[in-house]
């Protein structure tokens, strides 16, 4: 797709600005993990991993680290001072029980009601897998979705209703794409920010749900988010 757009780094950086210092944060696998790399070092964030870690730190130096100390994406990580280990059931208490302040998730589709579809497509024969997506989606205090605005084929991923199987209904608070930042409100989707050079009609054309626009839509400058 051509036209103005944010880079992945810009997108991750934009999400990171919405994570307050002191927050307990769970980053979904894939694109959301980039957010951890760009969070301001002035913030003290406690990262949670579903497999039983609070206070997850960055990857160890090559050849170092504990091979069993991994994140939800099965990559090696470290533990920061103040971190702790606990078992899976306790870890999911944290997720389902409303103790995680912010989660950033990838998605296949999000509806204007905040329905989230991020675990299965309509592909047949593909064996399904769900992991911790449903527990996290229903339990986190704030659910942020970071995804491309459309599929590679150009089909909209933000829809009036999801066509893929739901992960959870009415859970998404905010959506971040390479084109815009959108809030899910009671009155539907509200565009808060748009990439510089994109016009409203173009954004609406790439979206499968009716968009409202905030009174003061902010401009996102690529490379300067």
């Amino acid at each position, binding site marked *: 797709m051509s036209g103005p757009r944010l880079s992945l780094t810009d997108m991750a950086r934009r999400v990171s600005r919405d994570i307050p210092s002191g927050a*307990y944060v769970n980053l979904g696998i894939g694109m959301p993990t980039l957010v951890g790399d760009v969070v301001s*070092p*002035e*913030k003290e964030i406690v*990262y949670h991993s579903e497999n039983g870690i*609070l206070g997850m730190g960055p990857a160890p130096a090559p050849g170092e680290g504990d091979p069993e100390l991994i994140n939800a994406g099965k990559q090696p990580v470290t533990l920061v001072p*103040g971190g702790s280990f606990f078992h899976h059931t306790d870890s999911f208490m944290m997720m389902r*029980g409303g103790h*995680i302040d912010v989660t950033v998730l990838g998605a296949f589709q999000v509806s204007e009601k905040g329905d989230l579809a991020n675990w299965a497509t309509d592909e047949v024969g593909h064996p399904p897998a769900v992991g911790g997506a449903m527990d996290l989606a229903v339990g986190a205090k704030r659910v942020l979705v970071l995804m491309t605005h459309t599929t590679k084929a150009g089909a909209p991923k933000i829809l009036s209703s999801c066509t893929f199987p739901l992960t959870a209904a009415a859970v998404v608070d905010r959506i971040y794409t390479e084109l815009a930042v959108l809030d899910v409100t009671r009155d539907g989707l509200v565009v808060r920010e748009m990439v510089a050079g994109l016009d409203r009609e173009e954004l609406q054309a790439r979206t499968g749900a009716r968009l409202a626009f905030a009174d003061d839509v902010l401009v996102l400058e690529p490379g300067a988010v």
Partner: protein
Amino acid sequence: MPARADGEHVIDKRVGSLVDAVADIRDGATVFVGGFGNSGIPVELVHAVLDQGARDLTLVTNNAGSGETDVAALLRERRVRKIICSYPRSSGSIWFEERYRAGELELELVPQGTLSERMRAAGAGLGGFFTPAGADSLLAEGKEVRIINGRRHVFEEPLHGDVALIKARKADRWGNLVYSTAARNFGPTMATAATLTVVQVREFVELGDLDPECIVTPGIFVDRVVQVEAS
């Protein structure tokens, strides 16, 4: 994720006084009080609530106090509207008995395991559970009973608190906690199930001093920690 050099914007759940620890507890609040018998009771925090003045409280606690201190003092001073409890009667539970017999105190009696499990369900984001405990008893009256695998079970609802007052042994500034022997009892569960979890500890330690394999309550469940050295 380093702390800022100027010490701002870092996570620091330590508060400097018991007054600060119990600030903003509202009249009508549901307050968890940790402890079993005289083990693990956050005596100083409960007395701070007494001084703070909140009333019309619903207390959730295993025992209903004895003598003139802590929970008994709240009962004596008529701060408690209702108590949710497994074993209110004990030697010395004079204020509980006085208020109960006078009809001034509502009592919800809950089997001890169910009491703990109901709080856990709230902390775990569950909508309730079926337990065989009490299913054959008067305590199941008015509740949904279901036969599961040939055995009677009673449906029990999650029990959420506005405030949890608990006692631990050590804490760091993130609110990570370790406890002391059997004083652990209800603390770890109560911490997960209240909107505001307040902890009195004997000792503060530096971040990183607690073994990450041995932390019993991760700081995510803790809001305020106050030091009470002699406790």
